[in-house]
């Protein structure tokens, strides 16, 4: 017996049950906790909310988290694209090993990543001591925060750009060269339009991930209020000291920025999807 056309569009009872079950799953797992967070954050009214978020220590923590995440997003977009380029275009020996290493930061618990960095770059390590002589502090200072974030967000852009590069039709590149375009022009006219959306959306995901990073940061940052205390570590401290509303208020702010970053990533993906379909 053959299935009628459009079978997929008219689900049977079992599929419908499965579908509503999954919708329920997402709602209970993600939406309900997020709403609860926003509810607790705003429980004492918007004025209180604003006061809590703009108190000096909270504000400095949010600002630090935002600019480090933004910086990391930009660096990841540039360096991640370059790494993907190298991985796809050049027949490196041990490429599969290198490629696996790119994913490693996702597998390593971030707390372990932090301990690793603290051991390697800490003021008592060989590397840290040398930098210390030059007056540069890495761990327990802001560079340590950026370093830890770069580590944990490495895969996002690389993995977003890689498949795009791999699937690019070599005919386009050949055509550009045959028509007399130099390497730079070839890159700008052929590669860039294809890569840019993937690189940007990967960068947005890096940024979103960086906003929430806690495990590695609490080890490497030093966590000094008004100096090296990031928003996630601040939130942790507020929970620990029995101020869940302050924690929820600052969490809500960070969450909004993360949502904006992910929405940006989705938007870029959808736009390019549409452009691909029409071109």
């Amino acid at each position, binding site marked *: 017996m053959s299935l009628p056309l459009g079978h997929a569009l008219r689900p049977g009872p079992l599929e419908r*049950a499965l579908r*509503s*079950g999954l*919708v329920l799953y997402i709602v209970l797992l993600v*939406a*309900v906790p997020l709403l609860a967070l926003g509810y607790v954050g705003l429980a004492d009214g918007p004025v209180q909310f604003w006061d809590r978020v703009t108190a000096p220590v909270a504000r400095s923590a949010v600002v630090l988290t935002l600019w480090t995440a933004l910086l990391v997003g930009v660096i990841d977009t540039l360096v991640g694209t370059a790494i993907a380029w190298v991985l796809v275009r050049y027949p490196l020996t041990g490429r599969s090993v290198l490629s696996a290493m790119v994913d490693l930061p996702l597998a390593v618990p971030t707390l372990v990543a932090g301990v690793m960095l603290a051991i390697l770059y800490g003021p008592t390590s060989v590397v840290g001591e040398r930098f210390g002589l030059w007056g540069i502090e890495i761990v327990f200072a802001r560079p340590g925060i950026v370093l830890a974030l770069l580590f944990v967000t490495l895969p996002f852009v690389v993995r977003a750009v890689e498949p795009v590069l791999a699937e690019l039709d070599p005919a386009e590149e050949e055509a550009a060269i045959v028509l007399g375009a130099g390497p730079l022009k070839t890159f700008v006219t052929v590669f860039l339009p294809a890569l840019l959306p993937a690189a940007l959306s990967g960068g947005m995901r890096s940024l979103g991930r960086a906003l929430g990073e806690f495990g590695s940061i609490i080890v490497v940052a030093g*966590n000094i209020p008004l100096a090296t205390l990031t928003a996630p570590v601040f939130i942790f401290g507020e929970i620990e000291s029995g101020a869940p509303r302050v924690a929820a208020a600052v969490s809500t702010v960070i969450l909004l920025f993360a949502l904006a970053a992910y929405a940006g990533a989705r938007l870029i993906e959808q736009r390019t999807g549409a452009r691909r379909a029409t071109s």
Partner: protein
Amino acid sequence: MVHPCRDLQPPGIVGPFGHGEARHGPCSPPTPVNDHHLLSAPAWCAWLLLVLVLVLVGVGEGCSPIDDAAAGGDARSITLGAYTTPAAAYGTSLLPAFRRHEQERSGHDVTVRESYLASGAQARAILGGFEADVAALSHEPDIEKLRAAGLVTHDWKAGAHGGMVTRSVVVIGVREGNPKGIHQWQDLARPGIEVLTPNVRTSGGAMWNVLAIYGAAIRGHAGTPRGDQDAAIGLLAGILRNVKIMDRGARDSMLTFERGVGDAIITYENEILVGRADGKRYDYVAPRSTVLIENPIALVDAHVDQHGSREVTQALVEFLFTPEAQRLYAQHGLRPVVEDVADEVADRFVPVEDLFTVHDLGGWPRMQQVVFDEGGVYSRALDQSRGAAQ
């Protein structure tokens, strides 16, 4: 009936989330979704599944791990909710000694389940449903939280020694041979000295540290005029400016120091003594004036009555105040509260010229308000330290 959580309960350490983690209200209805097909008849299968899960979780929550003789009132099992500093003291010395003691006294075996968390986190876990029979915490305010919630109903400070089972002092740990010549609180404010102290928002130990500095300054023993609040804030700001890392708790801070970071660490005397007994090579100094740390212990009335474990828990608390137990505490670097034992082991601890208590400063509620609340001494010192640094 077989309790399903009997098998789920891990032996030994009971985390604060061992039970009660699913303590939500009844399942709220789902957010309405536009598609009206969503809740067609078969969809109830999904709902049924969900309800089933909730029921199972609910059963798991309902049974307490210690209900052996809830009605009889002679349970032989105790749950201890403690802070992390004395974990080794309880685990390796005091609780085994208590079990032997009970065995001889009544011929019964007693089991003690132990949970160790940072003091504030432990207090919150107990408030959130962790059914500890006895709470041994870092400082008075954490026990007071349990009293305010109605879990501790007796006057826990009425007993001998005011409900305080151990003591310690806040000292300054320095590198071997004290190369930077650190002796007093004001030395920690010198430029170029790197200091470690944990975050007051997460660590009870850090609060003791701040009180030690503030108290010494306000009493005129730290290079500041007596009773001069601004000078005390200035000293605190100077020290905070030199703080490179604020770890989560006293233990983490000590580990950072042991990794070689920092010139000095402000910490409990017992942390240093235990480390040195362990072969770690660092020295410590007691400043001229510092605070006497007093760690409280209290039986949690609501839980012992529920578990029927009042008698055995009371026996444990009383045991901890015996000379035998107090000597064991001293072996782990904690100062005994019982006078005779304190005299006996006095040579193990450095003398302090001006040892003051929180009571001398006006008591915990007042210190909470003056020092730790928003706009208090600590937050002003913090602002001042960063303002001058930038």
